[in-house]
């Protein structure tokens, strides 16, 4: 309990006595933390100094029970010639601590203040914030019934204030605080009741909110107004009239909401709450007239409505969904440590280097395509989409065309494989439509009059027309052959084996070849190449599955370009744990 009995405190000035308090009688409860509020110069610090015994009342007396901490605040009680450790030791000695207790106290202060090597340097070399940290730590290192603080952690950074808050919350279980501060949130967090100091009088409020509400901020407002006017003048704007200032303040308070609520009178507070509730609650909507409600709904719908999506084929939808899932899995990939990242970068650079050194697929035989696919796969580490997979498993169309054509074929861009990763669906669609047009044009050129157009796509070859096309230009022929293969691959995207079969059938149906022997020979070579490619690209037939979860589990092997790493395999997806983003 702290009781002030007819306490007056004055200072002698050139103009006579300046009273800070005049004949104040007050009793502070034992079980409440008290906020001391008041404008600058009202006497908050003097009040705390009187309570702490650092100052003596000019008249009257102060009765105190319990241990009261020294008032710590903007002027920390530290000797500048001593180090923080020596100051802490001094405090320990003052309170009659033993040597062991003092050692513990110093450790506590060192840990809490977190000033590093400065702890063993004279306090005179500290910044204001560091001094406050040390003073706060010394104060909190000892147990008191009342802790007196003048602006807790005002000079400290956010981290320090956070740790101070935690410590204060802990101490609040056993002790009480008397805090002078201008921070409303801080006071609301810590204190239960409040004292407002103004014009030499102290008013005690049992509830901190009442104290804050009672605290008239006229002085602060005047200062703020002045600052605002100065800012406007600086910017070359005209000064605001008092009415404008008041209106601005009101709108600002409205925006701030919570702080405004603190300043508001109970009636204003109630009105504010009602407005808030009306805005936010659903019941507020029901109070609106049917027309208003309808308008509201309409606006809401307008805001929320999205453009209708174009209709998409189920297969395309499938592809889209798969890509989306892949993107999401990339987004939710686990974090990679800097060391792993460095290693990955290194490997990536290495891979790029080898790619750069590799020939640009000058001769697109089966082996090169397979190698290219393998490289791309390792670069993107994405499971091939059905189309990509199907196409990549196709025999290279150049192999089925005359030897004079490879250069031309290699120049033909592959719509999917030659792009950077998987291309957008729209691009694919565009290309498809362009292909259709070109095919129609070719058909018109190559097909003799009266020949059905379907013969090109059908099983029956049209030797004459196709020979003419081949003679006309190998490039066109190759294109057509490839398109056919692509089409059949798309048709049988679900089953790669079927894709292979249909693609080979489509190619074998090509009327480009002349002579059955050559055809048979080429088919044989093609089959060999395909087998070679399949052997190279073969996925593990037996997928390793975790016995308990049924999910793919990790297996380890040594990579060719690095140390041992783990690979999670599952279906068509090959996930290399050396890479940062992979989530199966």
């Amino acid at each position, binding site marked *: 309990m702290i009781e002030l009995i007819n306490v007056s405190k004055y200072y002698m000035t050139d103009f006579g006595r300046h009273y800070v308090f005049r004949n104040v009688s007050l009793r502070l409860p034992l079980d409440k933390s008290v906020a001391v509020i008041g404008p600058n110069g009202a006497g908050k610090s003097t009040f705390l100094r009187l309570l702490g015994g*650092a100052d*003596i009342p000019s008249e009257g007396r102060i009765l105190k029970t319990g241990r009261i901490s020294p008032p710590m605040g903007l002027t920390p009680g530290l000797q500048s010639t*001593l180090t923080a450790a020596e100051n802490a*030791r*001094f405090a320990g*000695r*003052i309170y009659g601590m033993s040597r062991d207790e003092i050692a513990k106290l110093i450790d506590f202060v060192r840990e809490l203040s977190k000033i590093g090597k400065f702890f063993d340097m004279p306090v005179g070399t500290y910044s204001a914030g560091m001094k406050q940290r040390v003073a706060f730590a010394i104060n909190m290192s000892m147990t008191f019934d009342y802790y007196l603080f003048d602006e807790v952690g005002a000079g400290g950074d956010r981290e320090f204030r956070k740790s101070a808050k935690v410590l204060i919350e802990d101490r609040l279980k056993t002790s009480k605080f008397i805090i002078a501060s201008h921070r409303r949130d801080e006071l609301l967090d810590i204190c239960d009741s409040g004292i407002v100091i103004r014009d030499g009088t102290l008013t005690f409020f049992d509830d901190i909110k009442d104290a804050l509400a009672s605290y008239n901020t006229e002085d602060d407002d005047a200062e703020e107004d002045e600052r605002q006017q100065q800012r406007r003048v600086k910017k070359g704007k005209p000064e605001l009239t008092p009415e404008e200032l008041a209106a601005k303040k009101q709108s600002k308070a409205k925006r701030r909401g919570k702080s405004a609520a603190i300043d508001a009178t109970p009636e204003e507070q109630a009105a504010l709450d009602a407005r808030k509730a009306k805005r936010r609650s659903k019941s507020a909507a029901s109070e609106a007239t049917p027309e208003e409600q309808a308008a509201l709904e309409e606006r809401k719908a307008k805001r929320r409505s999205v453009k209708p999506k174009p209709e998409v084929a189920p297969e395309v939808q499938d592809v889209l969904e798969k890509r989306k899932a892949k993107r999401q899995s990339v987004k939710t990939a686990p974090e990679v440590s800097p060391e792993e990242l460095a290693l990955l970068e290194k490997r990536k650079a290495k891979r790029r280097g080898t790619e750069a050194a590799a020939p640009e697929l000058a001769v697109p035989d089966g082996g090169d395509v397979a190698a290219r696919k393998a490289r791309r796969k390792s670069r993107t580490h994405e499971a091939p989409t059905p189309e990509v997979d199907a196409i990549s498993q196709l025999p290279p169309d150049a192999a089925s065309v005359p030897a004079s054509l490879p250069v031309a074929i290699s120049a033909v861009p592959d719509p999917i494989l030659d792009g950077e990763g998987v291309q957008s669906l729209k691009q694919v669609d565009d290309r498809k439509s362009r292909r259709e047009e070109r095919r129609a044009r070719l058909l018109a050129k190559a097909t003799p009059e009266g020949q059905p157009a379907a013969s090109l796509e059908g099983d029956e070859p049209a030797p004459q027309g196709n020979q003419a096309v081949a003679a006309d230009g190998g490039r066109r022929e190759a294109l057509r052959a490839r398109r056919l293969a692509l089409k059949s691959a798309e048709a049988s995207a679900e089953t790669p084996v079927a894709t292979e079969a249909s693609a080979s059938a489509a190619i074998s149906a090509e009327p480009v070849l002349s002579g059955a022997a050559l055809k048979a020979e080429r088919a044989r070579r093609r089959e060999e190449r395909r087998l070679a490619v399949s052997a190279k690209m073969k996925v593990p037939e037996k997928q390793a599955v975790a016995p308990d979860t049924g999910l793919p589990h990790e297996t380890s092997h040594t990579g060719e370009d690095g140390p041992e790493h783990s690979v999670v395999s599952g279906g068509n997806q090959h996930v290399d744990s050396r890479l940062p983003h992979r989530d199966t």
Partner: protein
Amino acid sequence: MTQVDRLPTSGLGRFFFELREGARRQGNVIFALIFRELKTKSGQDNYGILSLVGIVLEPAIGVITLTLFWYLLKRQEVLGVHVALFLAVSATGFAIARRSFSSIPRTVKSSRSFYTYPSVKPFDAVAARFIIELVLTFMGGLLVLFLVWWFLDLTISMQHFVQGMRIYAELIFFAFGMSLILGIYGTRFPIVMSIFSNVSRVMFFVSAVIHPASELPAAAQVLIQWNPFAHAMELGRLYLLDIKPFDGASEAYLAGWALAFMAFGFVAYYANRNKVLER
């Protein structure tokens, strides 16, 4: 359990409890302040413990310098006592008085940052520094006497040693009262401090420190009889060196001054303690 919870309920018991608690608390504070003083003294010029050695050697250096000065004047003895021994006894006694004029009162201001601790008061700061200065001064005095004995084979008379110490004790009380008064008024009115710092230099020559009062002119002897420090010097030499003091040298006079200064010092402190605490 708080300190108040442990308070005895009876009046007398409570009085003694508070007395004991107060003494214990003040002891802790003075102890802490003494350590702080030592730390400050040793760390003020970054020479560490050498700074303390310098403080101890200061009287010795003073005595050696003055002895050399007397030697230059072709004088080795003062009233039948070797000049080195004569100066060792006088200078040591006056050193504590001189410090009560300057360094001790300044501690009231320099310890201001500690007054946020409610148990630390200006009185404690003065007491702590006084103790430190006293110990260091007497260590210096003993060092000088040891050097005189070591090199010149001369010692003080132990016949009236207790009386000699009594004189020094009176001098210490007198100096403490002076420190308290100057600590309070010197802090409140800095001009007082600067005036008394200069006075201490003059006092060195008018307090019979470097020569006996009996050797001064008669007019000066009349004046010097008013100076309590001169009485202390003369009586100290009487008991420790068997040198006859000037006529009218009185221990009661010295004790009276000591008592008056102590009383005035406490009253001044009590009356002005709030003003000293004010920032």
